[in-house]
């Protein structure tokens, strides 16, 4: 029986982005609007689940000397399929995402999970683990995407939420939210928030200050 925690653990407790610094490479650039972030998240989740299933099925037939290149080829082929599907059915969105869909192929979340989990487990647990990691990644992307779109443009998914000054409302859009630095600040804040809540994720500092017992007390 499949433990439910395989799916739920990576979403918050073992989140691949905020805990393991995996997969942020291609993620941040697409979070200026919620729609783009959601498309990217869906594409990644599909790729990682399919890749985990295929690699897990092949795991007993892959010689370990060529396993990395085989994994890269499987992932890249899946990415090509997803990219072609996006171009066929959501052409405008695929133009906006440009090279970032292709870059899922080098996304460390995908390769990290297939290498460390799918290669050693049966297909069903491997897919569950991949789904959990995909959802954890999607969660971070969707939080960032909605914050940036809401405060940068006053809209969510293109619908007006906060009426901007130009439209005769009160909200002055924060242009910084649409630029690169805000994504880093938001992600830093998100990491801080998660680690203040889940204190076991805090990194110990190499040379940090520690309280010492005063002599004689």
């Amino acid at each position, binding site marked *: 029986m499949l433990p439910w925690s395989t799916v739920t653990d990576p979403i918050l407790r073992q989140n691949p982005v905020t805990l393991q610094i995996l997969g942020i490479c291609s993620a941040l*650039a697409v979070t200026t609007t919620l729609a783009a972030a959601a498309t990217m998240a869906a594409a990644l989740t599909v790729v990682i689940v399919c890749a985990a299933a295929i690699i897990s099925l092949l795991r007993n037939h892959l010689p370990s000397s060529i396993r990395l*290149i085989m994994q*890269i080829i499987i992932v*890249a*082929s899946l990415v090509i399929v997803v990219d072609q599907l996006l171009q066929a059915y959501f052409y405008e969105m695929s133009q906006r995402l440009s090279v970032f869909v292709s870059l899922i*192929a080098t996304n460390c979340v995908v390769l990290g999970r297939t290498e460390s989990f799918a290669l050693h487990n049966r297909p069903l647990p491997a897919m569950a683990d991949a789904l959990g990691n995909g959802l954890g990644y999607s969660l971070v992307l969707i939080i960032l995407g909605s914050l940036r779109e809401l405060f940068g443009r006053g809209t969510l998914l293109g619908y007006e939420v906060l009426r901007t000054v130009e439209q005769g409302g009160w909200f002055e859009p924060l242009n910084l939210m649409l630029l690169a630095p805000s994504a880093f600040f938001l*992600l830093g804040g998100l990491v801080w928030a998660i680690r203040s809540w889940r204190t076991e994720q805090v*990194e110990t500092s190499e040379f940090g200050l520690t309280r010492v017992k005063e002599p004689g007390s």
Partner: protein
Amino acid sequence: MNELASLFIRSAFVENMPLTLFLGLCTFLALSRRPGTAVGLGIAVIAVMGVTVPVNHLLYQFVLAPGAWTWAGLPDLDLSYLRLLTFIGVVSAAVQLVEMVLDRYLPALITTFGVFLSLLAVHCAILGGSLFMADRSYNLAESAVFGLGSGTGFAVAVIMLSAIRRRLVYADLPAGLQGLGIAFILTGMMSLGFSTFAQMALP
């Protein structure tokens, strides 16, 4: 000549890979704890990008681009959907080759950054450089300059970040910000600084 110089400046600073395009962030954050490793990583990225972007350009132009097979009587053949697989293959092969050459002639160097070399096979900035080259249809000289420029930009950024993090090891940060959190915020500040390059008038 002037255009190539301005392309170099633009790819290194205005469109800096990690700071404005968010590419290669995994290694950027993971390997910037010490300046020594950051310098090794920077040199390796410059070398690999300087080689792979022009090689991929040649492959793309003569094998994959639409119409590349006109001489063989196949003018409608469009293999450009294979570019992702081809580019990944070339990057991994180039990384392997650089590793073997270094192993043979400069074994001292490989002990300094041997581990990062194999990591570069799945480095988003390197693959991204090749994909951008195909998207923007650069010619051969432009793609060589673009590869070197982007690599230099990555090296400059990672060395700067490692120097700042080195200064911060004694800082008394809030527990939740320790490590990754503060690295993101520092990167954001560096990214703000680099965004001023966008205003710069290029020759």
